[in-house]
């Protein structure tokens, strides 16, 4: 009941949009080499499901590894930065600088620094992109310790490590997940777009460009749909993990 109420409006909008799209293409006689109809994309998706699945697995693996590595790094650096004040002062503006860079454009350089036959460069790009939101949010969480909790732990004569383990980390958890949520779909985009610039031709990105180069737009969009679904899976998985990790939270996404 509650689910239906939440799911209905987006569902209706989605169905309406797809119907409108289909009608525009078929009634407006728009050639498939300009904009393919949803039905054509669907047919391709069904036909290519094996390829879409395999490409999604390849891109998904890169995105996942990049996400895990970037998130782990983000949390670790945030922990270090929260312990040493000067490090915070340096790292915050520096992370902001890093975030302002068009990192995707780093891909060709990373390909040269590592090797374009491995997936390391694109995983690295993903990790760098993921790093920022996780780092910033975690650091904020770690620094925003409730002063009462601080005094309480002092009153209990708790040491630094105990304090970090029992208060700082669990207190920062909601923030970590806020960062992860943002990072999850970013990771997929980054992994797919990085395929643009080199590396193994196994993922969704190279499939999309390859199909698009042959004006096989329905096929290209079938792979795009795969990318969207992959992003959604990442996002929802993070949401689920968040639920599981924080049973005390009654509401998600404050």
């Amino acid at each position, binding site marked *: 009941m509650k689910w239906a109420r939440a799911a209905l409006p987006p569902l209706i909008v989605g169905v309406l949009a797809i119907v409108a799209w289909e009608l525009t293409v078929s009634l407006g006689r728009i050639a498939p080499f300009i904009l393919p109809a949803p039905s054509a994309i669907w047919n391709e998706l069904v036909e290519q499901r094996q390829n879409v699945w395999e490409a999604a697995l390849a891109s998904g693996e890169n995105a996942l590894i990049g996400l895990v590595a970037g998130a782990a790094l983000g949390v670790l650096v945030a922990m270090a930065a929260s312990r040493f004040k000067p490090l915070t002062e340096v790292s915050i503006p520096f992370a902001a600088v890093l975030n302002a860079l068009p990192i995707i454009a780093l891909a060709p350089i990373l390909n040269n620094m590592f090797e374009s036959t491995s997936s390391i460069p694109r995983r690295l790009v993903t990790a760098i992109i993921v790093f920022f939101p996780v780092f910033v949010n975690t650091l904020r969480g770690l620094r925003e310790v409730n002063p009462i*909790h601080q*005094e309480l732990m*002092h009153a209990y004569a708790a040491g630094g490590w*105990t304090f970090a383990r*029992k208060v700082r980390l669990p*207190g920062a*958890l909601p923030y970590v997940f806020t960062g992860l949520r943002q990072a999850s779909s970013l990771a997929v985009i980054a992994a797919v777009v990085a395929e643009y610039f080199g590396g193994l031709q196994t993922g969704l990105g190279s499939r999309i460009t390859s199909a698009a180069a042959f004006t096989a737009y329905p096929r290209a969009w079938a792979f795009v749909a795969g990318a969207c679904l992959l992003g959604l899976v990442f996002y929802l998985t993070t949401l689920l993990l968040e639920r599981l990790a924080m049973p005390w*939270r009654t509401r998600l996404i404050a």
Partner: protein
Amino acid sequence: MTAVVVSSVTKIFNRGRTDEVAALSDVDLEVRDGEFVSLIGPSGCGKSTLLRLIADLIEPSTGTVTVAGQGAAKARKEQAYGIAFQQAGLFEWRTVLRNVELPLELRGLSKRERKARAEQMLALVGLEDFAGHYPAQLSGGMQQRVAIARALAVQPPLLLMDEPFGALDEMTRERLQSELLGICAKTGTSTVFVTHSISEAVFLSNRVVVMSARPGRITASIEVDLPSRDDAGRQSPAYFDKITEVRQALRGTPAAASSPRSSESAAAGTDAR
């Protein structure tokens, strides 16, 4: 033995800087074993500072603080006191039971032991049925009861409370006051209790210590001896007399006398939210 001895204590924050504040000046205070002492005074007079000195959360600029016959630092390390604040300050990621267990955990008690003790404390504050709940599922009053149970968990000889009922509505507040009195009587705990409410101070205390601001000092110490500490007590003339006495002691402070607003506008700088 004396539960707390504060002698000639001065506390100056930010010494030598432009924003130096003399929070406490030459304060002496003794709390006898089993005694319930309230600290009352205008905002910024140093009540919390005094409490935190006793808890060894901050150190005095001059003077000494003794808790249960030993230095405040030693007392803290031995968890010789329990403490509670205006905000319950529960750990939202722990269940009610595990919140109460926390100080026991840090004392290194075994799992079984601390569970037993925590359950006992929850029973004391009447929340045994909520052990598995998370704080967010409780009302403000219930949260504050959990905080009290947590403060009592290590069965400390001394209880320090900084406006623990400040955020509650008056009716819940009165109920918790009665419960607190019952618990203190049962456990024989000495208590230092900071409050803004005259009636609360009078109802709870054996002695109300009145403070004044800038610099913070003790201006009066009023012994209270109500016929009974229950609803009847709240309606006794002795109760109303003491309320008037404390109010006058508060009004009598020079700061309040000079101008009706001066203390507040002066506070604007430090007290702003």
